[in-house]
Each structure stands twice: as C-alpha cells, then as structure tokens.
C-alpha cells in the first residue's frame, strides 16, 4: 500500500469530479464549419483563417484538411486530436451499416438542479453547440464481417459526462447485444458522472456494469476502448471491465483527477502519470492502438474472441 505522506489530508474526494474541465458552452464560433475541432485541447491560431491547427504536442501548424483526412491525428508527431463521436463511428464501421438506436433520447432535469446555471439551459446550449442529443451515440453496425453493438462517447457534450441518458443508452445497447449474442464495443471519453443528475448518475455505473455482467455471463465479447480523456465514474464502471481494454496513444486515463491527487497526497506525480503508456507499463490495459490501426485491430481481436463461439455453434 502506498504510504504517501499524510501531511495534509483533503477528505473531499472528488471521485466523480470531471478530471478535465469540460469545454465552455460558448464554442469556437469562428470555426463553425469545423465544430469537431472546437474542443478544449486543440488550440487554433487566429491567423490563417481556420485552415490550420497548431499541434499542441509538436507545435507544427497542421493543415486542417490534412488532419481531417488523417482521422484527426497530427501528420508530424502522431498526436491524437479529439474526434467527434460521428467521425469516430465512421472511422470504424463498414460504410452505411450504422443503425443508430435511441437517437432521440434526451436528459431531463430530474433533480430540478439549482446551481449557478440551470441544467436545462446547459443541456440546450450543448445540444445547440454540438448538434448532439447527449454524450453518447449507440447503434449496431458491421465492423469487418462482425455485427457489433457499438457505443461511442463524445467529450464535447458536457465533458462526456455520464447521466441517465448515457447510462440508459449503453445499458440498452448491452442488453440488445446479450439478446442477439453480439459483441459490444464501447469507445469512452468522459470526465465522469454528471453532477447535475446527482445519484441518478452514480447509479448508471452500477446499471451498466449489471448489464455487462449478464453479457459476460453469456460469454460474449466486450472490448473497451479508452480515449482522451477517460476518468472517474466512467473509468470506475463499464470502461474498466472489458475482456480487452485498449487505449489510444497519449490518452489521459484515470480514476481521480491529477489535481485532486496532488492536493490530497502532496506528492509529485510520476512522469507520464495517468497516460495510456503509464497504464500499459503498470499492467492495466491490453494494448495501445493508434486511431488509424483501431479498425483492423478490432476486427482481428473479434476474430479471436468469436472463434470459439463459432466452433461451438458449428
């Protein structure tokens, strides 16, 4: 057990606190044509009229068209920029096979949350801003020859936070997969549980894991893909119980936010702490897979994970 210093103890353990501050509701309207880039991490330089993006890792100015064609991966240093859930889906599936489910499901202000801003107005702002209904897309699709139930989170919508809608859509996805004997793939990116829905959000952790328990019991494959960033309540539920757990390079992945850990322990965080590479070195994930390689690798893994089932069926 870590015997980290107890010189100062902060008991407020913000396990569900988004480790990464969600982007503000007011987006980068200057680049309205490319909303997928209006995220917290990608810094746009104002000069070349939105045609270029400065890579936060290698500082190269990358031509936007080049970035789009390269699945939002820096052509110079392979830095993985944030990618929208729709683009992600397209990058993984056989063209035209995605049948979205529960597309109209939206969040309600179950607690009548009285904060500095109302939850309702926040939801509407994010819906307008992102064109999304909530923080996850779900549906069935084909990846290679495999029919798969696919869930893809979107960090742009309230920091990818998990409330009732994310929990319910994923739970239905998993239940459908169990019923139809299909694999589940969930691509996560999330700051954690959604505060505005209080305990309903926390309970989505148990709900999704419950559905996965029965999916696993039916010996069906579940692949969890962790992308930048995946933390807190999502990490402490469905994202961590995959048969295979993959991560994109450089993704920030963890339970507690680094600031909370630093404040609590008063210790220096080790280099590369909570990155995909750190998790791999500590034995916590199966593999790091680049965005470009993701689809063939998923197909390859599914070939193995379903091989036995096919033998049994034959």
């Amino acid at each position, binding site marked *: *057990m*870590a015997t*980290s210093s107890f010189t*100062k*103890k*902060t*008991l*407020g*353990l*913000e*396990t569900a*606190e988004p480790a990464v501050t969600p982007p503000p509701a007011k987006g980068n309207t200057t680049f309205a044509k490319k909303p997928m880039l209006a995220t917290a991490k990608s810094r746009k330089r104002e000069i070349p009229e939105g045609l270029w993006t400065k890579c936060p890792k290698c500082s190269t100015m990358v031509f936007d068209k080049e970035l789009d064609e390269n699945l939002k991966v820096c052509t110079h240093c392979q830095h993985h920029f944030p990618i929208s859930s729709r683009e992600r889906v397209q990058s993984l599936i056989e063209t035209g096979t995605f049948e979205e489910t529960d597309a109209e*499901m939206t969040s*309600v202000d*179950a*607690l009548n949350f*009285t*904060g500095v801003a109302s939850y309702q107005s926040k939801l509407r702002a994010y819906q307008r801003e992102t064109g999304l209904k909530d923080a996850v897309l779900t549906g069935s699709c084909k990846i290679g020859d495999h029919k798969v139930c696919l869930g893809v989170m979107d960090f742009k919508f309230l920091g990818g936070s998990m409330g009732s809608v994310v*929990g319910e859509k994923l*739970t239905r996805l998993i239940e*459908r997969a*169990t*019923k139809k*004997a299909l694999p589940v793939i969930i691509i996560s990116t999330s700051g954690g*549980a*959604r*505060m505005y*829905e*209080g*305990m*309903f*959000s*926390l309970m*989505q*952790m*148990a*709900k999704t*894991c*419950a*559905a996965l*328990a*029965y999916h696993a*019991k*039916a010996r069906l494959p579940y692949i969890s893909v962790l992308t930048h960033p995946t933390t807190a*309540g999502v990490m*402490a*539920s469905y*994202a*961590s*119980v995959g048969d295979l757990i993959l991560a994109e390079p450089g993704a920030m992945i*963890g*339970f507690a*936010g680094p600031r909370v*850990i630093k404040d*609590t*322990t008063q*210790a220096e965080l080790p280099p590369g*702490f*909570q990155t995909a590479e750190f998790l791999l070195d500590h034995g*916590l994930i199966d593999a790091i897979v680049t965005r470009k390689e993701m689809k063939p690798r998923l197909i390859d893994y599914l070939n193995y994970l379903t091989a036995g089932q096919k033998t049994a069926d034959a």
Partner: protein
Amino acid sequence: MPRSCPALHSRYCAKTWLPLPSAPMKHHLDFEKPIAELQEKLEELKQHPEKHSLGISFEEEVAQIEKKIEETKRQVFMNLSAWDRIKIARHPKRPFALDYLQAAFTDFSELHGDRLYAEDRAVVGGFASLGKQRVMVIGTQKGRDTKENILRNFGSAHPEGYRKALRLMKMAEKFRLPIITLIDTAGAYPGIGAEERHIAEAIAVNLREMMLFETPIIAAVIGEGGSGGALGIGVADRVLILENAYYSVISPEGCAAILWKDRAAAAKAAEALKITAKHLLELGLVDEIIPEPLGGAHTNPELMAQTLQTDLLKHLGEISELSASDRLERRYAKFRAFGQFQEKSPASAAPSGNGAPEAHEPLAPSDNALPADLPADL
C-alpha cells in the same frame, strides 16, 4: 474539506490534521448550540442545587429545563438542512462500522487481506452473527483520532480494500452466507498507488460481480456515502440509509468548487444534489430510511445499533425468502430502473421515469443467446 466542516475544524488543524491543543472535549455542531447551552445549564444546576431560581423548587426547575431541552431538540432536528445532516454524518463521534460490528452484531471475526498486495484497513470485513443469522460483514472504516485515521486512511480505501471486499464476498457466495455492507466513506482514495494498482477497475469489478452473487446482499449507508468509493460495496438487494447519512455522486465541496467555483458554497451544493436520506427515498434511490435517535446516531449509539440490527434482520428475512433467481432478477431490475430521461424531443413526450416500460424490447423466452437466469424483463 475540514476547512468548511466546523465539527472537524474545532478539533483538528486544517493543515496538519493534528488535534488542536485547545480542542474542546465536546463536539457541538453549530445547530446543536442551543441544546448544549441548556444541557450545560442543567448540569450547572444539578451541581449547585442551591442556585435554583427564586419562586420555584429545584426539582421543578430541573423538570422545566429538561422539557425545554426536549422541545429544543425536536425543533432543531425537525428542521435540519442538507448541510446540517452532512455535519452529523461526518460527526467525529458518530458510530463507525466497527462500532456497529460490536453493538449490532455479535462474534465478529475479522478476516484480513486481498491475497494480492496488502491489507487495507480502510475496509474491514469478516464473519459475524446478526441475531441468530451468520453473515459476512464488510464495511468502510474511519478513524476517530489522528492515529486511527492514519491506520484507516480516513476511511478512504485503496484498490486492496475493494479487492478484499470482493474476496470475502466470493467466499460468502461459495458458502451461502448473506452479505451485509456498512458504507461510511468520503470516497475511494485519490492517490498515486491507488491509480497504479487500478482503483477504478477494483470498483468496477465489484459492481459487476455483486450483481451476480446469489446470496442475499444488504447495503446500509451509515454515515458518508461518497460516490464510487461507496458504490463499490453498494450493489445490493436492499439499500438502506441512516436518517442523517448521505449518499452522493460527488462531495458537496467538490461540486461547489466546480459549479460555484467556491468550496464555501458546499451547503448550496448539498441542497442541489439531493443527497439526504429523505431526498434519496423520494427519488426511489434507496429502499428505506433507518431512523436515528433524536440528535443523531452519536447521541445514543446503543439505541442506533439496536435499530440497525432490527432493520437489517427484517430486510434479510424478506430477501432470504426469495429464490436465488428471483433475488437476482429483482436486484437487476432495481438497478436497471435507475435513471430519468426523455425518449422523444421535449415538446412531444413526457419524461419517462425510472426505465419506461416501452424502453424494453420484450425477450423471447426461447432465445438461446440468453443465460438461463437473465432477468426476464430485459
């Protein structure tokens, strides 16, 4: 956190967490002050009977003050805010898991270790008897003073705590012992080692595994129900909560820091998050509130332990009567139903609360893909 918690603030230095030299022996929460003043007056009078007021006998005055104390107590504790209750839930004198293991259970026989890495003393577990029923008990354990708190890591478990809990629960499942969990934690520990040994996975695996244990499970939030760290031993057939305990997705201070940009807004956040026992029962997120003695569990721990024992036995009796498959089906349905959302755009549909029935595709019973005991209402 201690900065904004007077009960703790009065005892410990916020920086070093060492007891303050001038720390008073009694811990009065601010709303307890009028009661404490009356109690002091009563003590004073009993010590010096000759000082009783004019025109009234000593006995009469004692009776009067006692009556006033009861009235004031009732008044104060009928009108507690969410934040007041959190202060009670965090009261340093509040009974902890081990206190209940002594008072509400008998023959507690502690079992240690996760068999993998370490013994996490923020989680206690072992065999015990509840009435005549032998059970496995698991609880998160806080410390009452600095030394104990270092041993117990302030009740915040590392991955080893959750893995020890899982090991003991698996054993309980194997030998058909009911499982009782006592939840009292501000949250799982946010530390480097905890991350390196994958605390998120330790919690997530418990969420999944607890759903499939055939043995009865009861979870009781006895103090703080801090987010994932609480839920990590909180998947159960019945989820009970003590009257002044709370259960929240995030600490009120953390929520205040993010949404109000001010930790001092914790009281507002506590209200907004709807984390009191009463709120949670109204929202259908807990099954029953276990009443506390007037003034909080710490004012009469023996009575509290008795009430807890009675309630646990009642619920255990009820869920033990079900067949294992019924129990699993209901446990699944219970957690499955949590959530509120709209199926269509706000204009055209009413909110579908708690898992609207139209949400579920009916399952053909003949579907071979299903495990035999998959809840039928999926």
